[in-house]
């Protein structure tokens, strides 16, 4: 995928952001891991210390452990929402848009989209799963959740196939620019994101893992 010569025009609207690169992405993934640890470790330590101090403090320890579990889960839940389906348009436009999207991808991607609502797209940064209002980027055991969407034309809501096609075309023309324009909602372990996805979308994550 191309770099500066074919850069996304939308980059002008986020001129202050450094262009995403594989190295920058890995740094941001590590930062998310550290953030998760910063939330989990103190609560786990509190849980251990409280039990050591007094067995009567077991309920407090359990509450601390629950916090250690819940906070990363809430982050992951927020990340997983990027693949949510939006309100569909009328049947006619939906069919037309899915026809166009089908022309842009191969048979396997079409089949996966039909089952999960996500289109797989291999890239330099990892394998993408593109949805209507965002995308997942799978890299090894890490999944990054990107919130990004097509801006609706005035007075018209785009059908689902067009929403995906917008993101797919932008991604294909400038992958790193796409990751620069999109907002990173969460990055973390694949298993953690998978748990928070709707059941039908888990198959998409399994397919590209």
């Amino acid at each position: 995928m191309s770099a500066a010569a074919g850069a996304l025009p939308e980059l002008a609207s986020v001129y202050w952001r450094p262009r995403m690169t594989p190295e920058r992405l890995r740094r941001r993934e590590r930062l998310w891991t550290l953030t998760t640890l910063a939330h989990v470790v103190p609560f786990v330590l509190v849980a251990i210390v409280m039990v050591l101090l007094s067995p009567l403090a077991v309920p407090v320890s359990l509450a601390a452990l629950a916090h250690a579990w819940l906070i990363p889960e809430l982050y992951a839940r927020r990340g997983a929402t990027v693949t949510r389906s939006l309100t569909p348009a009328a049947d006619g436009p939906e069919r037309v848009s899915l026809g166009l999207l089908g022309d842009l991808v191969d048979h396997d991607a079409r089949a996966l989209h039909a089952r999960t609502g996500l289109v797989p797209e291999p890239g330099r940064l990892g394998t993408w799963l593109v949805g209507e209002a965002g995308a997942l980027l799978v890299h090894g055991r890490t999944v990054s959740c990107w919130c990004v969407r097509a801006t609706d034309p005035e007075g018209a809501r785009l059908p689902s196939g067009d929403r995906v096609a917008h993101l797919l075309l932008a991604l294909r023309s400038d992958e790193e620019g796409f990751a620069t324009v999109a907002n990173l909602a969460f990055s973390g372990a694949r298993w953690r994101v998978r748990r928070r996805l709707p059941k039908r979308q888990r198959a998409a994550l399994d397919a590209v893992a």
Partner: protein
Amino acid sequence: MSRLIRMDGSGHTTLAEWTADDAASVEAAVAAFREELDQGSIAMVTRGPGQAEHVRELPLDEPLVIMRRPIAGG
């Protein structure tokens, strides 16, 4: 026959069709293309599997040119 389409609320709308040897159809397609650009659309052509390119002029030899809206972080 080449086509210029716009993804919109109807799925997509064909804005123009042209053949390179028909000057009138080319002229109409170029006008439609520029009008879309003026309204903030972005023109894309596909370049084989996994490849697409943003174009600023109407590529007359392409079978399909797709106009899309800008994307933005949510």
